[in-house]
Every structure is written in C-alpha cells, then in structure tokens.
C-alpha cells in the first residue's frame, strides 16, 4: 500500500480543530448576568423556613390543650405491629389485649412508650425477642390518649391515663439514654407488686 493509500482516511480530514477569538456575544453576557442576579435574589426568597425541618416544610405545632383521639394515634403509630385488633403477630409482635404490661402499672407503661424496649420480654406467657421504638416525639396529650385507648379496647378494662401522668413520666428518668433492655430491666425499675 502506498503512503497515500494508507493515510487516505486521514488525508480527507480537515485540520485539527481550533477556536476563533470572537468575543463572547453581548446577549450571552447579558443573559448570564440576568441568571446570576436571579440566583442572588432566590436565596433570599427562601428565608423563613425552619432550619431543622425538611425542604420548605414547617414543623408541626401541637396545641397542648387540644384533645386527641386515641384510636387515630394508635392507627398511625402502633397498628402496624400490634395490629388493628390489638393481638399483635404471633411470635413476632406481642399483643396489647390482655397484656399485663398494658393493664398493670401505668407509670411503667408510660416509660415503655417514652423510651422503647430492646430485648427479651414475656407477655401473657409468651417470650418475645424484638425492638419497640420510642415515641417521645408525640405530645403528652397524644400519648395519654393512646394509652387510655389501649387500656380500654379489645376487652381491656383499666383506668385511663391522664396527661399529667405522661408529663411526670418525662421527668422521671432524665439520664436515660436508649431503650429499656427487655422486661428484666423494666421489672428492676418497677418491681412487680406481689
């Protein structure tokens, strides 16, 4: 193959690319400055949204004097595990219906909701190994309403829990960090009456 043949594809090309020194067209510059001014302005358009909430979200403000429907709080926070019928899921999530933890010591019950449980716990004669999340983010009134609800549903007949009891419960273990370690630790803190 002659050199001309070997380089035929390369021969028919134009020069290697280069650039002219044309100035940036003025409309491009004007548009760019317009965009930059918009960006500057837009930052100030977002003043006033709470720093710790999500994008342009406001934190929910709860009126402490408002009354709450315990069944609604239950459906939103509890029913996924303990089920709508309060019976839980066999072997996985313990029942609330007929549970000694629900019916007996009301201060202990408040503490379970405020801190959660992590570990072994015996409920109605069956041992469960699991995790219950804490719900300190709910308002005192909401917690009182849902606790009163579970103590009076599905055949449970225990006394309602007052908002004041939840309020007091929040002050009771100020140094506590993390969930109760199973039923054993709860029994230690609240010795069963015998």
């Amino acid at each position, binding site marked *: 193959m002659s050199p001309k043949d070997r380089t035929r594809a390369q021969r028919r090309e134009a020069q290697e*690319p*280069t650039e002219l*020194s*044309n100035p*940036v067209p003025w409309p491009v510059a004007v548009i760019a400055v317009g965009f930059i001014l918009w960006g500057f302005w837009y930052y100030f358009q977002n003043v006033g949204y709470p720093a710790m909430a999500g*994008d342009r*979200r406001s934190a929910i403000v709860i009126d402490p004097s408002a009354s709450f429907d315990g069944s609604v709080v239950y459906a939103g926070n509890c029913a996924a595990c303990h089920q709508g019928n309060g019976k839980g899921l066999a072997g996985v999530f313990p029942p609330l219906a007929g549970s000694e933890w629900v019916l007996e010591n009301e201060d202990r019950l408040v503490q379970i909701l405020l801190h959660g449980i992590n570990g072994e716990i015996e409920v109605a004669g069956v041992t469960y190994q699991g995790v219950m999340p804490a719900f300190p983010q709910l308002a005192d009134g909401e917690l009182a309403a849902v606790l009163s609800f579970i103590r009076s549903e599905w055949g449970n007949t225990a006394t309602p829990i007052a908002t004041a009891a939840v309020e007091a419960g929040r002050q009771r273990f100020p140094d506590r960090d993390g969930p109760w370690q199973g039923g054993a630790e709860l029994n230690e803190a609240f010795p069963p009456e015998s």
Partner: protein
Amino acid sequence: MTLAIAFLLAATFVISVGGLALLIWALANDQFQMGQQAARTIFSSGEIGRVEDPGAAPTARARMQDEREPEQADSDEDAAEFEARARADASTRVPVNWWLASSVFWLVFGSIFGMIASVKLHLPDWLVQDAALTFGRLRPAHLNTVAYGWASMAGVGVGVWLIPRLFKTEMLGGRFATAGAIIWNIGVIIGTVAIVTGHSDGMEWLEFPWQADVALVAGGALATVPLILSLLKRRVQHLYVSSWYLLAALVWFPMLFITANIPNLFGGVEQAMLNWWYAHNVLGLWLTPLALAAAYYFIPKVVGAPIYSYGLSLIGFWALALFYSQVGLHHLIGGPVPTWAVTISIVHSVMMCIPVLAVAVNHHMTVARHWRLLIYSPTLRFVTAGAVMYTLASVQGSMESLRAVNTVTHFTHYTVAHAHLGVYGFYSFIMFGAIYFIMPRVTGREWPNHRAISVHFWLVIVGFAVYFIPLSIGGWLQGLTMLDAAKPFMESVLVTKPYLLARSVGGGLMTLGHLVFATHFLMALSGQGAIRAQATRFRMRRAEVAS
C-alpha cells in the same frame, strides 16, 4: 433558613461567580501566557481551509460544499501531517476496538433489558415466573448496563482515540487501556449478574456491589494511564477545549465513584443526599464532559471550520465545573432535606443555563454556516442532533429543578423521559457520530453499507421521538393527577397507559436501530468494509459504492 444563612449563601455564590469570571477573563486575554496566540500554534501550515470530512472525491466534495476554495496540492508538511495522524490512529487501534466493541455489545444488552422493563409497565403479568425477570431487577440492570457498559465504555473508547489526536503524539501505554477495557467488562458482568440475581446495593445508580465497583475503578484507572503518559509527551502547547473536558472527566469520575461507594459513610437522609449528589454528577461530570469533548472535536473537524469563540469555550467549561457538582439535591425537593441545601441545588441547576448557552452558541454557530453537510455526513448529523438535544435536555433540566415544576414532574415518567433526552438524545447520539468517524481510521476500511447508517439514524431518531414526546405528556398528566386530592392514586397510574404503550413502540424502534448498528459495527470490525478514498456517507453515487 434564616436571613443570615441566605446572606452567606448569596455572598458565597456571587464571590465564586466573580472569581470564575476573573479566571475566564484572564485566560481569554492571555494573562497566563496560554491564550489565543498559543491556540494558533496547533495549526499545521497549509491546513486552514482544507476541505472537510467525510472525505469524498473532489467532485463530491464540491457538491457538499461549493463555496470553499479549490483543493490544494499536498505540501511536504501536509504529507508529514497525514502520516502523523495515521500513526496516531494506528497506535490506538487495539484499545479503541476493545472499548468500542464492548460498548456496542452492552448497548444491545441494555436495550433488551430496557425493552422488557418498558413492556412490563403496560403488561404487568408478563414474565413474572422468576424473580430475576421482575421489573425491580431488570430496570436497574438496564440502567447499569447502559450507563456503565454502553455509555461509559463508548466515552472512554472515544476518549482514548482522541488523546493522540489532541496531543499530536502517538499513544503511549495503549496496552494499559486495553487491559482496562477487559477489567471494566468483568466489572459490568459481575455487577449485572449481581443485580439480576438479587444482590444489588439498593441505591439508584450505585446498584453494583463492591466487587464490581473495584473492577470499574481498576479498569478506569488503567485507561487513564495512557492519557497521562501521552499528556506528558504532547507536542502541542495549547490544550484544545476537548482536552479540558476529557482530562476533567477522567479526574472527576473516580472521585465521584469512590466517594459514593465508600460503605456506611452516611445513613438515612444523608445517604440519600450522597446518593443523588453522585447520581446527578455522574451525568454532569462524567458523561457530559466526555460527550462535549467529542462534540467539540468532531463538529469543527467535519465542517472544517474553527469553533466560533474561545471565550465561550472557557465559559462553557469553567461554569460547568463550578456549578454542576451542587445540582444533585434537586432530586430531593420537598423531601426531608433542609431548605438551604435544596435551595443551593436549585440555584446551581438554573445557573447551568449559562454554560449550556455558551456551548450551544459555540456549537450551533459553527454548524449553522455549513448546515448542508448534515445531508451527507453521518458523523456531523449524529453529533449535531446530539448537541441540539444537549441544549434541550439541559434547559429542561433547569426548569425541572424549579419547585413549582418539580411538584408536578417528580415521581413521574416525565423525569424518565428527561433522563433519556440527556443520556440518549444528547450523549448516545454524539457517541454514534464519533464511532462513525473513528472506525474507518482505526480499521483502515470504510463502513460497509451506507444504507445501514441511514436506517440506523432514522430508526433511532424516529424511535426516540415516539419515546420521548408521549412519555413527557403522560408523565405530566400523571403528576397532575397525583396532585389532585379528589382522584384516587390508581387514576394516576391508569392515565399513563397509552403513553407507556407508545414508549414501548419507540423503545422498540430504537432497539431495532441498535441491532442494525451493532451488525454494521461487527461487519466493519471484521474487515468487510471497502478500501477506497471516499468515506461512507448518507448519500452516495452508485459508482462510489461499487468502487
């Protein structure tokens, strides 16, 4: 956010934009002794004004572009230049073949995954016998094979070919790039098998498990070796704009990919922020610069005219570098991410209009004066179509980042259509064009069949229109229906059905186009093309085809 935060963000923004403007001014006005004067040194004497690729016999050339001056005889310097180009192309033959052939293989594979996933959206009971065939696995398999198999491998292949051309030297260490292709392929195979068998990492764009990630990092690092070796041996003073994009992409990608794949770096909302920081940057700081490097090379190369403005090139590159890395969080608008973080991403997304406008003026002004070449040149037609869709996809993306628009389009098929306008309409079209230019130069043979190129072009462009337009409309309607509290959710699903059907038809045409392209590519690779002076063009006279 408080006024103080807004003030600090706005001040930081204005200061960095001001710094950038100063940098661009300094570069454009030779303040660093590297400006336009140096730019002219890359001309070989006698080159300016030579007629264009795709090469044609003198008569055909005259038809393609009659206004240009008559052909000049070769000077000695010209002959040396041709020889140097041929040596440069020969030095990249093996690695380029590896990277490009692999990319075409993954293109076909990825299209089939995409097709099945698309059909499943309107025929949900089809292929559900096995978990490996379900939507939740095939869709990520589609995404990863086209992103890391097709797009990345094609981009690296084109980059490897461009390196000696841009640096006017033969490629040094081409073997490293070949080894890189093999290892990268192993990574994509491991990753795809892992996804299909249910071992995905579970984050979008990061589904490949770490074993595959390691292979991609190693393969990519090997492909960078010849880039650096050739850069050190370069015979040009001024780095042409394509080199900036190429060098930047090969530096940015490993930084993004490694950071995003560090296990357990963040959890929860922060993990989602990292995820989208990566997923959007992989488009803007990896695929976009690869395709722009190619477009900046092939447009002036084929039309035979310089790029319109060096100043615009500088704005396009540096503004991309400044603005792009913050845009990802616009995927979390309205989510649990602080307002100030999302606001930065929105401002930066909108600012992307500036580099896009600069690049658009540069590209389109260069092509507009020679538009008749679009009739003949496959490379120019594909690359120009891609450059036009870059402008459209970018402006659309900036619009979608506005909260008012995002409220409708987020979580709908509109976003899917937009993603395809970017990675397919823009990126893949430019890669097709580049491959049409490169293959004859590395194989020494012309493309075997000019009609196959036409069929490929029309199938993919018509297919893409049928894909994109209905899906955008359907996605928008879906978004409006979801926002209407009076309508049940199911209605927002049903409203998309005819549009999803159209998407499958469009996707089918595109896949068919890819099969034609892949077959043609295999024919070219196996030496079935003719050896003749003229390039294979969209329109050829019978005598040319026969010769």
